[in-house]
């Protein structure tokens, strides 16, 4: 399923939720929508699902030579931001109901359900009411409900929320499995570490606008983060001492002997070290490779400054 979104805009009563956003998603890709709360991720997802329509701009979806302006229900697996199933019904009944609504026969639904329950270690709990399960396990049931009918496109709004690190890893594996099965996946998330492991391409948003887009490499190039250097000293140092010594640098203490420093540019490193060596014995110096989280923070801060300007 190939998706091209061009300059879409969406406003609600007093909020411009999405402002001129464009992106493309290729078949079999994992595409991540990133951004703080209120960035417009869920609004974009609702437009893709067809729950709302863009005020301006277009959504063009191509699947098996057919064209659509939103994802047809039969090809869609959806995990909404506001999720919930029937808490007073068993895991099995919830899944079979939704699978049959998706068009599966009871036998097919049973087969698919067994397969996914096995993967998520929920086979033993299939007869239990949903409300008896932990939040994490309920989340897993919801994920199964989104993919049980083998859709061409899976849209997951915050799939990692409410999960512990072990289950977050399981979801990462689950999403990779979906990709190997040829499904296209769109997800929105705050967990940058997870997205970094998964996403083929991503879109960073803030206040309804596109901030950065592309692969992780593209984003690194676009974000141009300031270099971060990690320094270890023989003597103990304090933040106050460093603030006096290096007033123009952003310093973050990691321990008494270790701190990181954000430099305006790599060229400033030697000047900075010379100043430090006058007061302390430096044991090691290493450059830190910015992860997606840092890129995200850098991009957001730059966007905020642009907005103010």
């Amino acid at each position: 399923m190939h998706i091209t979104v061009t300059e879409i805009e969406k406003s609600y009563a007093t909020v411009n939720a999405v402002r001129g956003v464009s992106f493309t998603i290729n078949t079999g890709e994992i595409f991540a929508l990133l951004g703080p709360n209120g960035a417009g991720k869920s609004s974009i997802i609702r437009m893709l699902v067809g729950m709302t329509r863009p005020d301006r701009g277009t959504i063009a979806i191509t699947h098996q030579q057919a064209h659509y302006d939103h994802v047809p229900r039969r090809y869609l697996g959806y995990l909404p931001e506001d999720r919930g199933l029937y808490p007073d019904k068993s895991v099995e009944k919830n899944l079979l109901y939704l699978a049959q609504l998706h068009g599966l026969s009871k036998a097919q639904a049973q087969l698919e359900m067994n397969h996914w329950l096995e993967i998520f270690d929920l086979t033993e709990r299939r007869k239990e009411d949903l409300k008896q399960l932990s939040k994490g396990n309920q989340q897993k049931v919801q994920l199964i409900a989104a993919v049980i009918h083998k859709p061409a496109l899976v849209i997951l709004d915050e799939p990692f929320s409410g999960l512990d690190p072990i289950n977050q890893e399981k979801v990462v594996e689950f999403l990779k499995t979906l990709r190997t099965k040829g499904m296209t996946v769109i997800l929105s998330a705050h967990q940058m570490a997870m997205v970094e492991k998964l996403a083929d391409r991503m879109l960073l948003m803030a206040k309804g606008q596109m901030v950065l887009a592309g692969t992780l490499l593209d984003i690194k190039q676009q974000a141009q983060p300031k270099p971060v250097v990690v320094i270890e000293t023989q003597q103990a140092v304090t933040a106050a001492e460093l603030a006096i010594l290096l007033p123009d640098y952003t310093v973050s203490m990691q321990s008494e002997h270790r701190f990181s420093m954000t430099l305006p540019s790599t060229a400033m490193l030697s000047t900075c070290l010379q100043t430090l060596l006058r007061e302390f014995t430096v044991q090691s110096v290493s450059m830190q490779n910015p992860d997606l989280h840092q890129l995200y923070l850098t991009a957001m801060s730059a966007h905020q400054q642009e907005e103010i300007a």
Partner: protein
Amino acid sequence: MISRQSLIVAKWEFLRFFKWKQQLISYVIMLVIMGVIFTWQFLVDESRDEYRIAVPGHFTIENTAQFQFQRPSVSVDEQLKQLMTSETWHAVVTEEESGIVVHTAAGKKWQQLLEQALEQYFRQQYGLAQGLTPAQLLRLSEPVSIEMRFLDEDYKGDDRPEKAIALAVLFMLLIGLTTAFGQLLMSITGEKQQRVTEQLYAIVTPQQWIDGKVLGHSLSAMKAMFTTSLVMFVGILVAVLFLSDKPLPWHLINWGVIAWLVPFALLGILLCACFMAAIAASIDDPNTSGKGAVMMITWLPLLFTYLVIDSPTGWGMTVLSWLPITSFAAMPVRLAMVELAWWQPVLSLLLLVAMVYWMRRVAGRIFLRGMQMYGKEPSWADIMRWAMSRKIE
């Protein structure tokens, strides 16, 4: 016309509130309660017993099936002693200056019947004293026969068994609507609060969803109507067969009228369920919304019909039986009590079918638009605008 998805939703909704074990237990309890009431009535019925009554020697009162009037030779004081100490007498009647006095150990229900028997005896005695003949006395004691004759040949009469059937249908409709009201409100607003709605929207269209809901809960309402009728019928059957010696009054049932009542009642339930679903779909939070009460408007056709039930040929009943929003309650009553040309119920039924179709589309539209308003409840103006729009999705 109805999709597979709607049928799956309908089945789910129907079974969601169908707890057969609890239902079975509740029906058994209902039957037991009815049995206990009938048995208790039978046990405490004093009219089947015989009572010995001591009366003064000159009384010529005749015995009845219940009362044996005896003229003892012992004194009144002795009779009263016997009344208190043994079961010789159930009552002792004496004559005093103030009038007749009935002495008994304690007040009981059968004594009212004794009073009536004595009253009739003394009325006869006064008549004889006035020189009336026994034939004149008999004439005076007979009730006056008043017969109502109606010139309108289409009016079947007020005391026909069909009226009881029509009233029973109104009662059953009330049960059905109450069931649908509770379940639809809980089901639709509950799903919204449990956040299932957005998930379902990605799977089925709003129209399929609302069709399934309406059908499922209408079936629930019909099941409640059917089972209540069945339990009541079984109760009456048991009472008639075991507690009374009368045969079952099958001949009173007009099957032709019942055949008309059923489609009107079923379509009425569907219509009201569509309306209730539309209103429920516009409610964001049932705890703070005042819209839930509006769903009870569906009871008004029953009330309006009941208020004009004694004037089935009047303009009120005629208007109600043609209006598609009230015909499901009024036309069956009119059919039961007035002879109508065949095309009248047929046309009324067709109008009702059209109304049900329109209302289900309205419910679908309101649900779709209500879903698109996040965290905000639509105003009545919004709801009216959506109801009148043509957009489905």
